[in-house]
């Protein structure tokens, strides 16, 4: 009865008004006896609030957490600094406990935040329009693949093997549903092999999906790839790291047709993998193809600027089976976090974050490379993450690092056995030189 505010007296009065003597009558009138559950639910007895918190603290106290351990683990979820003001707004009841702004007159807060979010995404990606958010990076990429197919009518797409293994899995899962073949473009070390890619791209290929920087943290030759795919009439989809876009060219400026990204790095707690933020932006010409909610500016009947959900003819509640996607609830609160984050760090701050991450990652790479047995796995440029060959299996090294209160890099052994012993190390602006030196020393001591 924890959150049920109806007293026994109220209940009786209400039953009287309804004209029944018990709630059982209401259920009996609806649920046929043959499907009624005849026993209580077999669940543990209710706890009070105090017990809930005590239980959950105890349950998770043993988890290693990023406040106590120094993390060099990235691979799609990053330990960027989250300004204190972000959480203030996630907790404002008016944002937290609202739903999709169906009634714009009492939802201008959420609507304007989304409009601002869309604007920031466009700025970062160099695209014309953004939707209000997708579930996460992987599903955004899969939806982009769906857009490619629907736009080109072609039933084959190419995805870079250097894209996040989980993103590739999600793309394949989605594409399998609509009978689209997903071809994996092979690698040369940890970069796409452009010759092989060129050979794969035919006029049957709807598009190429490339992660930039790629899963290994390194850059792809996106300008060349763009030419290859556009030459055959396909679309070019980029999965970006939004933080990287402070330093790296906007995909809109090298010809991307759709840009997706995982927004977690923009002020969102790692939270064991979710809730995160699927960013999706595209060119104006695809505005009727993009999935999800979109907010637009308009006027009210008093002549004031105001915001409203728009272009809804793409959406499931209007178009049903002809919709561009089935997405309904999205990740609005996480888009709020990203909007507050980008507002707080602003134009210069995001560049600082990106540059510091790059500087520190390069320092780490150069120091680790000096250790015997460690050697960069790829020669291509990198941003805040890099992949390095290790003298022993990475998971063994990581065990030793854990003992030093360090969460080591991503062990590539399972996903990329072709690299041999290797790990992908992420370094954000939060890591100090002292922490990096501690990592290097700990690596040096692994026996």
């Amino acid at each position: 009865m924890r959150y049920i505010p109806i007293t026994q007296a109220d209940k009786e009065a209400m039953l009287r008004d309804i004209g029944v003597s018990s709630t059982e009558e209401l259920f009996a009138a609806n649920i046929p006896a043959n499907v009624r559950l005849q026993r209580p639910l077999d669940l543990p007895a209710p706890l009070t609030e105090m017990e809930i918190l005590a239980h959950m603290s105890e349950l998770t106290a043993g988890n290693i957490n990023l406040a106590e351990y120094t993390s060099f683990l990235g691979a799609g979820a990053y330990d960027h600094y989250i300004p204190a003001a972000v959480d203030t707004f996630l907790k404002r009841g008016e944002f937290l406990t609202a739903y999709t702004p169906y009634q714009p007159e009492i939802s201008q807060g959420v609507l304007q935040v989304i409009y601002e979010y869309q604007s920031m995404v466009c700025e970062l990606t160099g695209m014309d329009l953004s939707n209000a958010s997708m579930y996460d990076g992987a599903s955004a990429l899969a939806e982009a693949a769906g857009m490619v197919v629907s736009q080109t009518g072609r039933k084959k797409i190419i995805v870079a093997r250097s894209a996040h293994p989980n993103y590739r899995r999600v793309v394949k899962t989605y594409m399998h549903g609509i009978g689209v073949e997903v071809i994996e473009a092979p690698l040369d070390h940890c970069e796409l092999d452009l010759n092989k890619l060129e050979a794969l791209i035919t006029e049957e290929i709807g598009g190429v999906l490339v992660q930039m920087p790629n899963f290994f943290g390194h850059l792809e030759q996106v300008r060349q790839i763009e030419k290859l795919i556009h030459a055959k009439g396909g679309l070019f989809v980029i999965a970006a790291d939004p933080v990287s876009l402070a330093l790296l060219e906007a995909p809109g400026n090298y010809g991307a047709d759709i840009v997706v990204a995982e927004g977690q790095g923009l002020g969102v707690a790692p939270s064991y993998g979710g809730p995160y933020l699927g960013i999706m932006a595209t060119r104006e010409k695809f505005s009727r193809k993009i999935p999800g909610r979109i907010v637009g500016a308009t006027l009210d009947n008093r002549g004031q600027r105001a915001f409203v959900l728009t272009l809804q003819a793409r959406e499931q509640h209007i178009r049903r089976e002809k919709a561009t996607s089935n997405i309904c609830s999205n990740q609005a609160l996480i888009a709020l976090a990203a909007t507050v984050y980008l507002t707080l760090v602003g134009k210069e701050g995001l560049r600082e974050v990106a540059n510091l991450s790059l500087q520190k990652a390069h320092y780490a790479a150069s120091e680790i490379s000096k250790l015997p047995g460690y050697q960069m796995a790829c020669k291509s440029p990198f941003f805040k993450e890099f992949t390095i060959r290790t003298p022993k299996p990475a998971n063994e090294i990581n065990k030793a690092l854990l003992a030093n209160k360090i969460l080591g890099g991503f062990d590539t052994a399972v996903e990329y056995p072709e690299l041999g012993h290797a790990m992908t190390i992420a370094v954000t602006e939060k890591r100090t030189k002292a922490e990096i030196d501690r990592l290097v020393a700990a690596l040096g001591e692994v026996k």
Partner: protein
Amino acid sequence: MSVVPVIFEKSTPGKRAITFPKSDVPAVDLAEALPADLIRQTPAALPEVSEIEAVRHFTQLSRRNHGVDVDFYPLGSCTMKYNPKVNEEAARLPGIALTHPLQPVETIQGNLKLMHTMEEWLCEVTGMDRMTFQPAAGAHGELTGVLLIKAYHEARGETQRTKVIVPDSAHGTNPATAAMAGFEVVSVKSLPDGSVDLDALKDVVGPDTAALMMTNPSTLGLFDPHVQEITEIVHQAGGLCYYDGANMNAIMGYARPGDMGFDVVHLNLHKTFSTPHGGGGPGSGPVGVKDLLVPFLPVPVVEKQENEYVLDWNRPQSIGKIHSFWGNFGVVVRAYAYSLAYGPELKEVSEYAVLNANYIMAHLRKYYDLPVDRFCMHECVLSAKTLKHEVGVKTLDIAKRLLDEGVHPPTIYFPLIVEEALMIEPTETEDKATLDRFIESMVKIYKEARDEPDKVKSAPHLTVVGRLDEALAARKPNLRYKAEA
């Protein structure tokens, strides 16, 4: 202020809120680290504001928004119940909020145990055998579920099963999902009470039937009296049965989709399990399945081995993955905290949800049309048909006038099979006083519609903005801020 400038309009070059430390490592030259043609030339024109401006901006915006924390929010089909504050605190525990999805499993046993336990509990509530938490929302769960069905038929070589049957009373996500999974959608007309027309169903099932997707209680807030026959009909034709659990708040502890013959079900934790809607999300749409679909579940699956929890990736028949990591874990955490608060008393959640909906119906049926004269479950669907025909006041007008009363209006114009629909879902977390206040408002508006219809048609009057020009928004899309040239 009735207009808050967009944050870009408040931007001034050089202003800063958060700054970062100087680098403490030997400098690398950007031009050396990155290829010249990939270095960004024009910085993204993000806003440049101070921290106080940022804080005021988002504070002011929040004050222009309604939420459950502000007042009543009976938005049908969305289960806008109270979102407990303790759940927010739990989700921010360092062992939860500050954990990385790819940490070695031995460093994250608590989270794995939480997921495993929650899976057991939700299986008990739904009568299913296993659950996956990867889907990030209801529609995502639907997609997962329908792909599981597809994989099942494929594994059995029944690739001719290309059709998914969806009643016309269904939520838009159902047909959209089926299409997204590559199925052909067969829409069957519902009976006027929103239930499935058995004859029509029998007509369409056949060897090409992959599945039926059904919402029960239906979007009219009514439990389908023939649900067991329905699943039998579909099963006999070799199809599987999908249960859209968005309305699970009506039946917890009373009935279970698994016991009704469903093979797959998705839940909306952001509805039934009290996790906040966040202005549109994040949600969580876990999918439960019967044994026959377990081999196809997304990887990885959390398994308990001896005293250790592991992530099992070795599942050759899996449909693959549906989320970057393991789903909206932070949302699952909140739902777990909620489940701890109720245990078997979840049944009372449904009991009171149904009580509240019937109470509203009992009072408002005297004023508004009642399409189906039956006790409802967790929500009641009314109609403003008569008002529209007699005085020209539409459901939309009523909704807008409700804004002046400080409450969020019900869902309107859904389900599609009801003319001028008003779909009212009070949830169990509202007390009688709040319901009475809402009833009073609805009656007042009814009377206004009769006495001063223009007052209703021109509503809202007390909100920070008036009715919006939606046509303009669509005709001249302005979807992002652009600095004036």
